[in-house]
């Protein structure tokens, strides 16, 4: 039965299930459906390859960011190794595709599982360690994985990296940005759907309980070890999928992108988007990808302008500066991120012209 009425003015929720609904009215659900149809049916045919390229990068970043938000925003375990886990996913997919010869459909989820396993290994200290110490342990994980990617040459090909075969989806060749867009977008929607629903289950509630007070959570009968490890596993699984998709999309991979800076980029995404908000992670991914693109676009523009090409070289480091600045500004002025801004915006539209 459809409830196509407008939003009630006030909170009329009476039962717990009503608090847990994702869409308060069916309008929300309707808009969601319309959005997906437009994204799949219209966008690929109207957008230029360059725009599709940006959209694809957004989708990949969003998958990884959602995973990281499950770990940091919902479970409260700060990880500085997410960039490396994305790298593990990328290399796992590459190795599975080249050495074992697995097709795209098998290699990607398998890469996710491999990464989940690696993530859990680095998550083991989380049981004994609290906040700060755990953060440092993940920092160590980042450096160790970075090192392995470069120096385990027999597996990773060292600094030269690996070139992947063409991706094909059940006989369909995925070569253009357009075909990739459809696949990436569907995977992104699916994984986001999983994440949104995961946080509504007992697992999600256990994560939040651990974040808010792990001692109390343990007292209520939540096995900390299992749930923290699970959070690490799930988060790394998302990272692995994102990495695998990245590997197939960019065709050739090197250890270069998977540095600490990438980890920081993901953290910037979820902070700017909003900690503990799935939609926030997506906003953050979109924001950072656009920022990245516009920064490199500016640099390129200056490069091509004769007189300014020297300036362009010197402003390259400013990318890092801008990143840092944005993180700092968001933390100080809007700690709940874009998701909160979006909520305020929507609320003011809905309630206009009344103040509340």
């Amino acid at each position, binding site marked *: 039965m459809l409830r196509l009425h407008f939003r009630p003015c006030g909170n009329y929720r009476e039962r717990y299930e009503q608090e847990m609904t994702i869409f308060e009215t069916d309008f929300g659900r309707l808009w969601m459906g319309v959005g997906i149809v437009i994204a799949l049916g219209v966008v690929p045919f109207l957008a230029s390859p360059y725009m599709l390229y940006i959209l694809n990068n957004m989708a990949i970043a969003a998958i990884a960011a959602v995973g990281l938000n499950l770990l940091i925003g919902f479970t409260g375990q700060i990880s500085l190794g997410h960039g490396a886990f994305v790298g593990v996913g990328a290399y796992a997919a590459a190795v599975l595709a080249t050495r074992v010869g697995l097709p795209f459909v098998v290699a990607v989820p398998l890469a996710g599982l491999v990464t989940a396993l690696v993530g859990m290994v680095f998550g083991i200290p989380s049981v004994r360690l609290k906040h700060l110490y755990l953060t440092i342990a993940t920092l160590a994980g980042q450096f160790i994985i970075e090192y392995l990617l470069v120096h385990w040459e027999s597996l990773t090909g060292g600094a030269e990296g690996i070139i992947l075969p063409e991706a094909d989806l059940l006989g369909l060749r995925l070569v253009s940005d357009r075909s990739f867009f459809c696949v990436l977008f569907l995977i992104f929607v699916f994984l986001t759907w999983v994440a949104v629903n995961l946080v509504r289950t007992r697992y999600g509630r256990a994560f939040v309980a651990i974040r808010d007070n792990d001692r109390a959570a343990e007292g209520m009968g939540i096995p900390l070890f299992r749930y923290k490890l699970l959070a690490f596993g799930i988060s790394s699984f998302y990272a692995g999928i994102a990495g695998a998709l990245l590997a197939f999309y960019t065709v050739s991979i090197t250890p270069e992108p998977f540095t600490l800076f990438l980890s920081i980029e993901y953290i910037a995404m979820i902070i700017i988007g909003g900690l503990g908000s799935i939609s926030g992670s997506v906003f953050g991914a979109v924001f950072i990808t656009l920022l990245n693109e516009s920064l490199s676009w500016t640099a390129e523009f200056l490069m091509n302008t004769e007189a300014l090409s020297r300036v362009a070289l010197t402003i390259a480091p400013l990318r890092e500066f801008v990143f840092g*600045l944005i993180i700092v500004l968001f933390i100080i002025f809007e700690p709940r991120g874009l998701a909160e801004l979006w909520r305020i915006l929507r609320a003011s539209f809905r309630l206009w012209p009344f103040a509340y």
Partner: protein
Amino acid sequence: MEFFLQLLINGMALGFLYGLAALGFVMIYKSSSVLNFAHGELMALGAFLFLTLSVWAGLPIPLVFLLTLAGSFALGFLVERLFLRPLIGESLIRVIMLTVGLSAMFKGLMLFIFGGNLHNYPDFLPEGLNLRFGAIQIPSVYVAAFLMGMLFLGVFGYFFKYSSQGIYMRAVADDQTAALSLGVHVRRVFALSWAIAALVAAMSGIILGIINGINVHELSAIGLKVFPVVILGGLDSIGGAIVGGVIIGLLESFTGGYVSPSLREVVPYIALVFILMVKPYGLFGLVEIERV
């Protein structure tokens, strides 16, 4: 044997520098429980300030020393005032993320101004500091590093253990509300700890610069290497910072000499993971006292 001794000396000197770098880090942690991910950048800022004043402005070295220390002190104060004060009382993850953001900001800024290449200081240490034991020679920079490290260790050990201001700082770290109730100026303590930490960071940055020359990337990497050092020594132990530094330095030096030079950079982190598995609060860290 000679190779071994040379590695030993190099490792000790390197370790002392790590320990020195870790001192400033521990300083902030002790007074405000903040993990400062921007520590390497604070070191680099001090080192580059020294470079600017000595090479580019051409001032005499003792004056440059004083100016750099004063400048770093002011910088630490400013950083606390501008960025950390609005976050007093916020959750820890925000504060940590803020320092991550700060580190990216500073690093970008320095790369923009100074570029990513190696810069060298003018040679100003007296020759007489060179020590010689048979075939083994200890360069004067190492001796200077060692002496400075000992000096700082003594001064800070004394400061925290016996001076009233040091006790107030530890009190704030322990229980902010109780410290407030006794009239400890908590905000001033935070500002002071950042200022002192920036000063110590600048000091260690300069010593590193004297030995190796300075480079933004390298200094910020050392800022992260502080983590294995302080974990080894315990996050809040000043003596532990130096001991941890020496252990990590030796580990690096011997791994680089006997195993493989490329492994050298990660071996501190591998050690870190092992230590955390075995002794979660480090070798010298305080065991959490929990009473209900």
